[in-house]
């Protein structure tokens, strides 16, 4: 046998076959490349600028995320394994006749296995050689762009290249590739030569009465409507079993819908018949590019729908998942407006005495344009300090308001506000001054109301302000005081050292009296221009942190505040967008590969069409129409479903306050939908090009023979 006697021949065959595989199934090769890129990006996440930066601030959360990476890696492995298996099985099926020929020539089965293995391996290595540099480049770009977007460019870019990530990418990729290969080639090599040589069976499936498909279509629609209704109405999120029902309904509905689509296709094909029957001949002539092969197109689609309704349903679910992930990721990221209301850069806790002196000793005070003390203490004038404060007028006023969600929360929260902390007016006014807000003026016997921004929202603040405008009386340790001014919500410290759900701001004298001089002092600092000059604020804070660490002063900086929010933003948007891309790639590859392989199986039909007088342009237009429909069905259905899906997801995942801005968030997701349609367009064009190339092969060789 020539292969066995001549290793050179074997190598040539391997090389030529792999090159042909890549050319004929470029979509499959592309999905291999994307798998590699996906692996690398998820694995190199920890080397990205943003993550390196956050590691310093929020090491706990970042570490938790990093601990999840192997999980993501594993999940990606599984998803991509199925993709490679699926796309590979088509390739093997298409070549089965060729394998049969090899065996007929006398190639032994182990040798055939070796041939396939060598082809597969050379393909994998090439994919890695091309894929890894591209992945490194994309990862680097993502790192730079993210850093730029969140304003970290300043921290100094570090290469995100990670050898560990490269190694794991290669290992993971080769692992799934070999696993898929073993299963597929095992199937092929075990087959009888005769069955390999046989042309792929035509696969005529038993037709059921049209009513069955119509019923299935209707049942599918009903199930899906019910599932989305449950999810968007919030029913599904209340209990795990209800979520289970929703999920089951959704999956069942999808399966039924796609099974029943055959009815729609049959209907369209028959309508195509009728349309051409009733059309005016002259007009038909003009529209011939439109009318040509319409019936054929729908019959082709119908066949695919019958044979692959399962795969189509899976593609639909994947695109839907991708759309929901993408939309939510972007919406959540955009909603997290972490840079607003930033006043303070630093707060030093009162654990260390004389922070100011320490700063001055080290010459660090000169970096601050402002350093002021925020005094906060408990009521110390009474033993019964738990019930030292009552504000019945306020509570009555609240209770008299029309019922609303905000009122309920206020009634509940303020009901516990019987032992408020006290804040000294001078410190608070310095804070207001720094924030550029009008200072608070309080007379003796007056108090301002402070609520931390985390405990209120616009609606609640508005209600309280309305009540406070009447200057209601309250009782503080048996003495009447008037609550005046507006509700104060400027954060007392830079991050989370102190968050108060309800506090009273008192003139300094009263403050000293009620606290009996026993209070905490938080030293707030705002960096001066010199410290920030030439750098961004974040870099200035980073530099300052280093100096403060050396001084051993306990402090918190704005970096932590920002870092935490940045982390959630980055983590949620990063991972959802990553998942969206994976889902989208898998779905599109499945659809594309399925179409192209189906087209090759129907090669004989196309040849018949050529003999009946179809020219190349007609065939290409027909294929293009089929491709549009083929991609269009799952994509458009998924886009429609995503409008409900997005709503359902946001209903379930977001807090009540955020739910109110859902229409806003859905609006934000619309550009994402458009972007996704752009991705689909690219895939459609790619598949069209491949299909046109294949159709050309049907036109040419027969003519030349």
């Amino acid at each position, binding site marked *: 046998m020539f292969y066995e006697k001549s290793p050179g021949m074997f190598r040539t065959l391997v090389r030529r076959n792999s090159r042909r595989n890549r050319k004929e199934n470029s979509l499959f090769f592309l999905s291999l490349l994307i798998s590699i890129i996906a692996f690398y990006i998820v694995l190199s996440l920890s080397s990205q600028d943003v993550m390196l930066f956050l590691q310093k601030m929020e090491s706990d959360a970042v570490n938790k995320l990093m601990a999840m990476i192997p999980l993501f890696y594993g999940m990606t492995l599984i998803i991509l394994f199925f993709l490679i298996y699926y796309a590979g099985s088509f390739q093997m099926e298409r070549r089965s006749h060729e394998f049969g020929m090899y065996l007929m020539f006398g190639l032994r089965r182990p040798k055939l296995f070796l041939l396939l293995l060598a082809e597969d391996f050379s393909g994998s290595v090439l994919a890695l050689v091309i894929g890894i540099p591209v992945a490194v480049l994309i990862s680097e770009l993502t790192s730079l762009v993210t850093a730029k977007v969140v304003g970290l460019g300043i921290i100094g870019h570090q290469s995100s290249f990670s050898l560990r990530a490269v190694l794991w990418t290669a290992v993971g990729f080769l692992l799934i590739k070999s696993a898929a290969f073993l299963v597929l080639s095992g199937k092929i090599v075990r087959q009888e030569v005769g069955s390999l040589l046989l042309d792929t069976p035509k696969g005529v499936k038993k037709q059921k009465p049209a009513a069955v498909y119509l019923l299935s279509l209707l049942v599918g629609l009903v199930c899906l409507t019910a599932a989305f209704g449950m999810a968007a109405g919030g029913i599904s999120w209340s209990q795990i079993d209800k979520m289970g029902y929703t999920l089951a309904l959704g999956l069942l509905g999808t399966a039924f819908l796609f099974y029943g689509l055959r009815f729609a296709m049959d209907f369209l094909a028959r309508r195509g018949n009728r349309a051409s029957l009733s059309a005016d001949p002259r007009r038909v002539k003009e529209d011939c590019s439109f009318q040509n092969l319409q*019936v054929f197109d729908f019959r082709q689609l119908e066949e695919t729908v019958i044979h692959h309704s399962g795969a189509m349903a899976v593609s639909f679910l994947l695109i839907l998942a991708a759309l929901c992930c993408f939309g939510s990721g972007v919406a959540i990221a955009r909603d997290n407006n972490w840079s607003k209301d930033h006043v303070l850069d630093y707060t030093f806790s009162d654990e260390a005495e004389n922070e100011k002196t320490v700063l001055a000793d080290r010459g660090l005070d000169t970096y601050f344009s402002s350093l002021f003390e925020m005094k906060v203490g408990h009521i110390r004038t009474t033993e019964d300090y738990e019930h030292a404060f009552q504000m019945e007028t306020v509570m009555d006023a609240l209770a008299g308001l029309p019922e609303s969600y905000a009122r309920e929360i206020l009634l509940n929260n303020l009901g516990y506000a019987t032992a408020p902390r006290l804040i000294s007016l001078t410190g608070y006014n310095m804070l207001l001054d720094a924030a550029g807000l009008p200072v608070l003026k309080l007379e003796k016997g007056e108090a301002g109301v402070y609520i931390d921004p985390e405990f209120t929202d616009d609606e609640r603040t508005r209600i309280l302000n309305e009540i406070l405008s009447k200057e209601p009386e309250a009782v503080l340790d048996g003495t009447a005081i008037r609550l005046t001014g507006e509700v104060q919500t400027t954060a007392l410290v830079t991050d989370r050292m102190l968050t108060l759900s309800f506090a009273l701001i008192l003139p300094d004298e009263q403050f000293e009296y009620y606290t009996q001089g026993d209070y905490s002092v938080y030293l707030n600092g705002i960096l001066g221009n010199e410290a920030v000059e030439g750098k961004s604020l974040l870099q200035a804070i980073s530099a300052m942190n280093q100096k403060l660490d050396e001084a051993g002063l306990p402090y918190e900086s704005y970096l932590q505040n920002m870092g935490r929010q940045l982390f959630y933003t980055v983590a949620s948007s990063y991972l959802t967008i990553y998942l969206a891309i994976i889902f989208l790639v898998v779905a599109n590859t499945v659809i594309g590969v399925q179409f192209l392989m189906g087209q090759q199986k129907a090669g004989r039909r196309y040849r018949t069409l050529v003999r009946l007088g179809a020219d190349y342009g007609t065939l290409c237009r027909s294929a293009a129409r089929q491709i549009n429909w083929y991609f269009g069905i799952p994509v458009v259905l998924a886009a429609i479903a995503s409008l409900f899906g997005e709503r359902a997801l946001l209903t379930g995942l977001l807090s009540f306050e955020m739910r109110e801005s859902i229409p806003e968030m859905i609006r934000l997701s619309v550009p994402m939908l458009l972007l996704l349609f752009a991705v689909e367009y690219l895939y459609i064009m790619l598949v069209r090009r491949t299909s046109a190339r294949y159709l050309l092969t049907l036109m040419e060789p027969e003519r030349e023979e």
Partner: protein
Amino acid sequence: MENIRTENILEIDFLSKYYGGKSQNQTKALDGVTFQVLEGEFLGIMGSSGSGKSTLLNCIAAVIRPTAGKIALRGAQIQDMEGKELAEYRGKKIGYLFQNFELLDNLTGRENILLPLSLHGISEKESRERLRQLADYLEIADVLDKFPAQMSGGQKQRVAAARALIMKPELVLADEPTGALDSRNAKVLMEKLSGLNRDENATILMVTHDSGAASYCRRILFIRDGRIIHELRRDTPEETQQMFHGRILKVMAQMGGGSENVL
């Protein structure tokens, strides 16, 4: 006689098709074949495997390009056609009947028959009457809405015949149309084709090695090694089909005997 007024519809002039370049291994599939087909004629082409009869048919159907010579359908040179003109020729001027039917298995009978119309953007309205006539004549009216998998071999070939005839082509090319049929269905098909030739004056050029099918023709060309070596003409109306069949068998026996000089 009526035949005097009929004219040549197809003219084949020194048609050659060589494979294998100019090397010693060159195969001459067709070697200077010349003949004419009259309008309304039912012409058979017979020969053993590899004699060149299918190559001849494929050259006329413009599926393969000849090495030399000319093919003219009503004066139009087929060998020079390209692109749209070629597609028009294949779709409108000729109808092709395949040995294995080549029906698209995912289209109903009706859709298969109307496929050529769809390809050339012609309204079905014009051909509705034509479809009805053909369906009635070929006895396929009740399978029009069935898929090929639900039809018998004979029905499939008759649907294929309707597809070949729906555009009223000037020439019907049939490549072993009975090859995949049992004798009963083959007989039905040949009677139908012969009837169409007689009643509608359809010009049919059929390649076959089935003497029974060939006996329906009015003239038969015998081809061997790419050359026409003999011609039989049925003497209608004196000669019955059975007598003609007998003559065909005789020629075939002589050819099969390997005699250089058949006559």
